[in-house]
């Protein structure tokens, strides 16, 4: 059989590498060393992290790292957005709290007023929200202020006076219209009278004044000491100690005018002008002026 010889290719040359083999004795030595290493590996104590089954879990999860990472990013984004929305809702809720306002007739009605919600627990006493009519609350507050101011001791109290509405069975129908549920009892709907609005406004003003009084009169402790600035020793208004820039500018201009109008500088200016004008020019300029028929004559 006479076959045509094909040229030697790169693959043929690389196939020669496949034929590079160590002698048989090499494998005897190889097996002996491998056996020794294998026994050593069996006896060697493995690190604790390799014995954990969670290592295999991570290895398995590693195959899905891209979808897992994307899911984690989406979850974090969702939680961040949701927490942000809840925070905004809390602020809005704090700004529109329902307060009980005392009616001159004797009952209490809810009122929508802006509040600052601060709960403080002082000296081991835990404050609890209370539900009282505003005038009663104001009276109690005044007593509390007196106690604080006279005794110098701290009495357990709820700082911003977050009042829970005390609602009886008969007052519920009067609360509903103010809460915006007019369609529930359409027949018994009552609209807030100007008297109630005035009462609400008065209650708000009283509450604000009460808050300012509490924060300014009582000895500052806890939140107050951090939130409010310490009283200044001097009674001078800091703005009055500052000089406005316009005063600086005005004084600079006045100084410059004084220096210009001084005699010394005036003499120097006249001498400088006289040096610049030659004698002919000066004579010519003088000739142009004259008097004629009782008037001033100027030649051009």
């Amino acid at each position, binding site marked *: *059989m*006479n*076959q*045509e*010889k*094909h*040229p*030697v*290719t*790169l*693959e*043929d*040359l*690389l*196939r*020669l*590498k*496949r*034929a*590079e*083999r*160590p*002698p048989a004795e*090499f*494998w005897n030595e*190889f*097996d002996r*060393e*491998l056996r020794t*290493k*294998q026994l050593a*590996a*069996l006896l060697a104590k*493995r690190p604790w992290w390799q014995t954990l089954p969670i290592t*295999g879990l991570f*290895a398995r999860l590693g195959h899905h790292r891209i979808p897992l990472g994307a899911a984690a990013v989406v979850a974090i984004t969702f939680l961040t957005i949701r927490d942000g929305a809840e925070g905004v809702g809390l602020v809005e809720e704090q700004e529109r709290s329902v307060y009980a306002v005392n009616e001159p007739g004797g009952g209490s009605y809810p009122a929508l007023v802006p509040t600052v919600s601060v709960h403080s627990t002082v000296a081991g006493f835990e404050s609890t929200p209370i539900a009282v009519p505003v005038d009663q609350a104001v009276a109690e507050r005044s007593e509390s202020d007196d106690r604080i101011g006279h005794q110098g001791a701290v009495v357990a109290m709820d700082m911003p006076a977050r009042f829970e509405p005390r609602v009886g069975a008969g007052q519920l129908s009067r609360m509903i219209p103010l809460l915006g549920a007019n369609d529930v009892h359409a027949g018994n709907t009552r609209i807030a009278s100007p008297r109630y609005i005035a009462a609400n406004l008065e209650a708000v003003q009283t509450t604000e004044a009460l808050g300012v009084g509490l924060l300014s009169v009582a000895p500052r402790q806890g939140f107050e000491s951090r939130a409010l600035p310490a009283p200044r020793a001097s009674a001078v208004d800091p703005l009055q100690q500052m000089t406005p820039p316009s005063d600086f500018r005005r004084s600079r201009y006045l100084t410059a005018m004084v220096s210009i109008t001084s005699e010394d500088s005036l003499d120097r200016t006249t001498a400088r002008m006289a040096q610049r004008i030659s004698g002919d020019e000066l004579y010519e300029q003088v000739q142009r002026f004259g008097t004629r028929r009782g008037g001033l004559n100027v030649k051009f």
Partner: protein
Amino acid sequence: MHQPADYASFSRVIEATKVLGKALVASPERRLEADADVDVVRRVQAGEVAAFDRLIVKYRERVFGIVYNMTSNREDAADLTQDAFIKAFQSIHRFSGQSSFFTWLYRIAVNSTLSHLRKARLRSFFSLEQIDSDEPVSKEIIAALTDKTGVDRDSYVRDLQEKLNDAMQKLSTKHRTVVTLFEIDGLSHQEIAEVMDCSVGTVRSRLHYAKQLLQAELQPYTR
């Protein structure tokens, strides 16, 4: 008895088709091997340590061949092959059978070798093994190379070995690994992609680039 003149070209086409098919998917022999390995691995996982020796005897020469052609050093190749088997033995409880055992073992060996080559980049000592001249394929190739030139066969083969080794060492480690796994060990593109943890396209690209470089280096020997 004379055969038609185009018999050689026809047989070359058949061989090229087989090579192409082997390159794309794993051969049936490999699949049978993989199925047989699963039973042995299960026994080792069940506590039969002696069963692992069968896997060592079966794969030690192939793993050594890969590591040797990547490092071109016998001692390093022996150490790295032993380490690969030890690592496989220690971690065999983690082998879940998603890939074949030899792919998993190759991956351990290749990663260990690449790590070793990164560390020992500056100190490289090469040692060349003897080409088995009794093997029919190598015998035929050597005969084809030396018949026309008429030079001393042993010295010519030695020069060729050195030239081949130099050309392989000029490749980057990843290109060298791909050439070793494909041309010398005979793995398919898919299997190489699994071993090297990359795409099949990357394997093909690396193989093409590496062959271009090798072709330029070994041009005097290819005719």
